């Protein structure tokens, strides 16, 4: 990952109320509700400073552009991420609910498929999807070691 990084404050700023979010997803009926939630969630991820939207921070394999920064503080792994597409940004926020501020063991043990299945979003992970969610998840799991 690139030499310039967001500062520690940016890594620690993200605070998603995971329980409330997950509950809303499980209760959501219909695609409209589910995708509205995803996009609202994406809006909660802070916008990445333009100067940090650099090629070296891009996750390859996404049709939309995704930037991802990682920092380990003590035993915890923190992430800053952004995308130019709303749904992907929301899906990444969901990933971060599961991985942000967690230990390497927790992140490695995280069952991506099961997580998205519970949320009613299993289809979003299939390799035929160009949203790149799988690539982002793989990157997160490969840096959090």
């Amino acid at each position, binding site marked *: 990952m690139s030499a310039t990084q967001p500062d520690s404050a940016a890594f620690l700023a993200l605070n998603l109320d995971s329980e409330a979010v997950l509950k809303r997803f499980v209760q959501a009926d219909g*695609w409209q509700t589910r*995708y*509205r939630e995803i*996009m609202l969630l994406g809006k909660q991820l802070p916008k990445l400073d333009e100067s940090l939207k650099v090629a070296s921070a891009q996750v390859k394999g996404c*049709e*939309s552009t995704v930037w991802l920064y990682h920092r380990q503080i003590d035993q915890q792994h923190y992430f800053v991420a952004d995308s130019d*597409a*709303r*749904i*992907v940004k929301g899906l990444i926020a969901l990933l971060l609910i599961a991985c942000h501020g967690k230990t390497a063991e927790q992140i490695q043990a995280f069952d991506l498929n099961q997580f998205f299945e519970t949320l009613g979003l299993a289809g979003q992970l299939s390799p035929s999807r160009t949203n790149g969610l799988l690539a982002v998840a793989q990157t997160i799991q490969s840096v959090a070691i």
Partner: protein
Amino acid sequence: MQLLALRAQFPALEQTLDGYPLCYLDTAATSQKPQSVLDAMADFYRYDNANVHRAAHQLSARSTAKYEAVRDKVQAFVNAQRREEIIFTHGTTEAINQVAWGLNQKLDSNSVILVDTAAHHANIVPWQQLAQRTGAKVIAIPLADDGRIDQQAYQALVAQSPSIVAINHVSNVLGTVNPVQAMVAQAKAAGALTLVDGAQAVAHKRVDMQEIDCDFYVFSGHKMYGPTGVGILYGRYQQLDTLTPLLTGGEMIEQVSFDGTSFNTLPNRLEAGTPAIAEVIGLGAAIDYIANLPQAATQKREAELVNYLQTQLQQLGGITLYAAHNDNCGAVAFNLNGEHHQDVGILLDQQGVAIRCGHHCAMPLMHSLQISGCCRASIGVYTSHEDIDRFIEALSSVKAMLID
């Protein structure tokens, strides 16, 4: 009513996705297949399966006859002068690679290759590779502001005596139609070989090799109601006959010994290995299918559908259309202003609407339009006005969701 009967021949169209009936507007990526094509392939495996050109037995004679009969069909379909000018490939991509590889000996560091800015990557990358091998230079033919080829710039480039000119017949993204006949004539007058990529043309237009007069014309079966895994390289006999084969091995030889090998004559010399026999048979059925459509009426209806798509999108508002001319063919490219094409695609998919969103294997075109990607809706013989109405309705709800 007629259209209902026609649609009934395409079994894949009769399905629902999460309760929404499929609205298939991605024919430019690959078309759906009529029952006659599915049957022809299944029947081949069920009754006639044997390798071609090899065995003395009756089954092989039958499969060879059916396979070679498709060559005649393709010859008639594109009005080629000789059946040997029709080479079966795996698709457009392989066909262009064969031509580009085959010209290794004919180019050097002084050579220039002109390539359509709107070309599919399959009609760009093989030329770049050829340029790397030979030291030749690839120059992009620029587009004018209206998204069509800048004909003045083209003429100036042709004046540089290029060795090869490679262009679209129809753009897979924009649906724009190049004036191929005039462009080929100019290239030819300058001494260039010409390749026209007809992948997006053959399902919608009658193409005539004597009229277009290009040296090479290529297309894929799967975009013209036929199967994947088969495509056509048409080439003028003298040009094909001097191409270095891309693939070598069985079927394409005359004599093999460890002292040396001599190649077979056309078409075999460019068809190494066991071909995709069932797919070729399927392609034959697809050509029959197209030939049996009322040609003038079908073209008129398809042109109307493209115009209907363009005007409905325009009326929805908040949409940017790219190079939307009323003589476009098959496809309409657009973006929802301020929104990412991928978001639009995902939300349409939730409603059973299948379109393609992305760079469409045409990154230089995206660059020229100064966009990272776009949405493309494309039509086929089975597309109805209702499909387009449903698409517009779904897009309208996407718009409401994204811009609230």
